[in-house]
């Protein structure tokens, strides 16, 4: 067992993990972050996507020990403490970007990262930027619309070059 420290959704946490434990399992089974889910064993579905030090990663392809000392943001930290949704969450809601919702945690976290790298993507760029995330329900159209709409909403309210896009909506920068 190895002891790791990490900041998960703005809270400092420690966990005892085996060297082989994947980050997603540490999150789900040891840290109670069951909002992040698993859909495959080959890093193809993206359902497990979180931000690791601000970058989206598939948490099934990172060892928990690799995340020692890092900041991990999951879907559960995306909305503000008062419940106000992050613009990407709001856009998924308004554009029917989810049905069963199983792919949604990963989709949202990937979209947050995509928009931080490219705040005003074209539809083509959104489709390619979200390529690593599989959705079986929506046919992607609502998801793509949502990411485009969030891009619009976020550039309207913060300016296109906001550096910490993982920050919840409405936090004054």
């Amino acid at each position, binding site marked *: 067992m190895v002891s790791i420290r990490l900041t998960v959704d703005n809270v400092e946490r420690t966990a005892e993990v085996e060297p082989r434990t994947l980050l997603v399992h540490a999150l789900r089974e040891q840290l109670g972050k*069951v909002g992040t889910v698993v859909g495959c064993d*080959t890093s193809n579905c993206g359902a497990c996507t979180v931000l690791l030090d601000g970058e989206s990663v598939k948490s099934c392809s990172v060892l928990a020990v690799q995340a020692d000392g890092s900041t991990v943001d999951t879907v*559960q930290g995306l909305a503000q403490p008062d419940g106000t949704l992050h613009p990407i969450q709001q856009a998924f809601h308004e554009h029917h970007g989810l*049905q069963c*919702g199983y792919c*949604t945690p990963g989709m949202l976290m990937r979209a947050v990262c995509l928009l931080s790298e490219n705040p005003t993507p074209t539809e083509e760029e959104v489709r390619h930027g979200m390529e690593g995330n599989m959705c079986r329900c929506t046919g992607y159209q609502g998801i793509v619309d949502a990411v485009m709409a969030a891009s619009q909403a976020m550039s309207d309210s913060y300016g296109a070059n906001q550096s910490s896009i993982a920050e919840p909506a409405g936090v004054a920068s």
Partner: protein
Amino acid sequence: MTTTADRPDTAEVGQSRLRKEDRRLLTGRTRWTDNLELPGMVHLALVRSPVANATITGIDTTEAAAAPGVVGVWTGEDLPEQGAMPIAWTVSDNLKVPSLMPLAVGTVKHVGDVVAVVAATSKDAADDAAGMVDVSYDELLVVMDPIAALEADSPLVHPELGTNVCATWGMDSVALGTGGDVEEAIRAAEADPDQVVIRRTLRQNRITPAFVEPRSIVVDPTAEQVTMWSATQVPHILRILLAMTQPVDEHELRVIAPDVGGGFGGKLQATREEALVLLIALRLQLPVKYTETRMESMQSAHHARDQVQRLTLAARKDGTITAFDVDLVADMGAYLGILTAGIPLLGGFMFNGIYKIPAYRFFCTDVFTNKVMTDAYRGAGKPEATFGIERMMDELAVELGLDPIEVRRRNWINPDEFPYATVAGLTYDSGNYDQATDRALELFDYDGLRAEQARRRESNDPVQLGIGVCTFVELSGLAPSRVLGSLNYGSGGWEHASIRMLPTGKVEVAAGTTPHGQGHATAFAQLVSDELGIPFEDITLISGDTATVPRGMDTYGSRSLVVGGMAIVGAARRVVEKARPLAAHLLEADPNDLEYDRGTFTVRGTDTSKTIPEIALAMWLAHDLPDGMEACLDSESTFDPENFSYPTGTHLAAVEVDTETGKVTLRDYVCVQDVGVLVNPMIVDGQVHGGLTQGIGQAMYEEIRYSEDGQLTSGSLADYLVPHAPDVPRYRTDTTVTHATTNTLGVKAVGETGTTAAPPAIVNGVLDALRPLGVTDITMPTTPLKVWSAIQAARSEKGGAS
């Protein structure tokens, strides 16, 4: 033709209400089965067969049993209490049912068959120990191809059955009294210089539902009722089937489907995994969890389609069809799931499509092979049938040199011919195929694309344009119970709902259909709001739990709205009828003098009124009820449809085929559908987009493949290619509306339309692009290699012939 005109602007039905269910899902406040942790819970790992057909000669569990954390290891022989898995559809008297035990006893029949189960204090410990179970196999010959399985010298999947034929089932228009003799009509056509006879053999690829949430089960035996949580579409059906087959009685078992991450028919099953978790929990008297890996899901959860279709179509040279003969071989895989044997025959009712066909025959041979069982997947029988007829309509158009739209127009049922009794014995209640097609042609710019196609052909453009057409109808809204009875189906097709009127004016709707992404909480609240005048926000849905919703038939076959929704409307109307006498009492009026409109009773000609929430409170208080009135406004209703639902539409695909690389690109996709009155247009769009993407997946990307010796070679999402965002275009959709006449709201089903119509539209498009090169057929999926090879083969044939 829109119907919103006769409904007030304030009506909820017809509005694109944003979904009630989103907030939890968007914030990770979810309850997937795998999230559940219970005190003392143990975890299971399953040992699965790596070979496709074998006798088990020995299983050594000693090392596994001694491994750290292990609570128990069992083989099939160690679980004498296990019962054979159920089937729910005895399609014919000659049906052969192989025994499928939760844990294999003596033999394995496909890769992924379960041979041992390990319980341990952690998932890792269980997995580690499972790797230590030593199983010896005596391998046997396998048969992987359904046609080969019919040959006299084929290895038998189940030698004790004496044959690989699982069942045969047929229907024809003479027996049905709906038309002429198909053989006679085809013979006559062959002798008639004014007719053509077209024979084709088409293939349905084997695919899998590929829900994103792997199946997961938790069983807690520590309460009065044993509780099972399962990622299932069918908690009610599952409870009954487990009670009928495993050592637990129905009243001792509660089944809960919590949040379920997609199903598409793939979670319409009673699985060995569910039975095993139950069996081990009962053995240990501890909570037990099992969650499959994706690889296990591919090896064990049921697959779908996998048919060979031998089709014969006769038509006059003006394009009118004179006969259609369908001879299917359907691959069951090694075992039967609950509906496996019946899925292909659902197609029997649909091979005639939207057309007037004077003579028709359908015959299906269900065959065993050493593969995973097939069963329901979005569309279930109808996509297969639609593919068959719609591919043949294009073949007919080519044969006769007619435009594919025109040949369809000459055969389809006209708007003034509804209700229309079909040659397959159904009655289509309503439709207007001209209207949907005309709108689709306009949206698509059909003429413009045909002109571009001609230009590209002319200039020998290496990238050719193809236009794919599919006009379809599908049988949905399962199902009239009497029809199911006549087909030997093991249950009714009704649906149940109850409405609980709370004293604070809020409402709980308990519905027997259980959602896994369809937006029930939203759409059902819209229905109830209109009936009872209760604000949308004040209505909540309870579902997916046999304790809180005791009656239900669950979710499949696009039944949630057209069957389940009608039960909800029925229950709401009963609330109104129960409220009326109390309203009259409180208003000191005669019940017959009360007018009711969306939640308010008004004394005719006055402005004195009582609302439903006021009456709900008065009922709860029960201080001033008329003599003899029961103090309860809650109501329930069971709805059994008198007919199926028949959504229809026209799909047009523009595909570009790079003749140098074989790459197929879907450039544009237009679909105009008639799904009746729309309750929530946004949700309808979502259903259409999702269904289309799965249909396009079957046509262009997805295929379950096995090697000749029975190894699954597409066992992960790296090999089984589900479309991702860049693989599909922006869809352009519209709706036309004809009212369903079989329910009070005029609604039709929608969930399965995309998977039904898209595959033939795509394949017809690819062939349309390639026919000038001499390519006459291409099987799904239309991968670059396959397309490229077809082009090469056609070229060399042409070269050889010249």
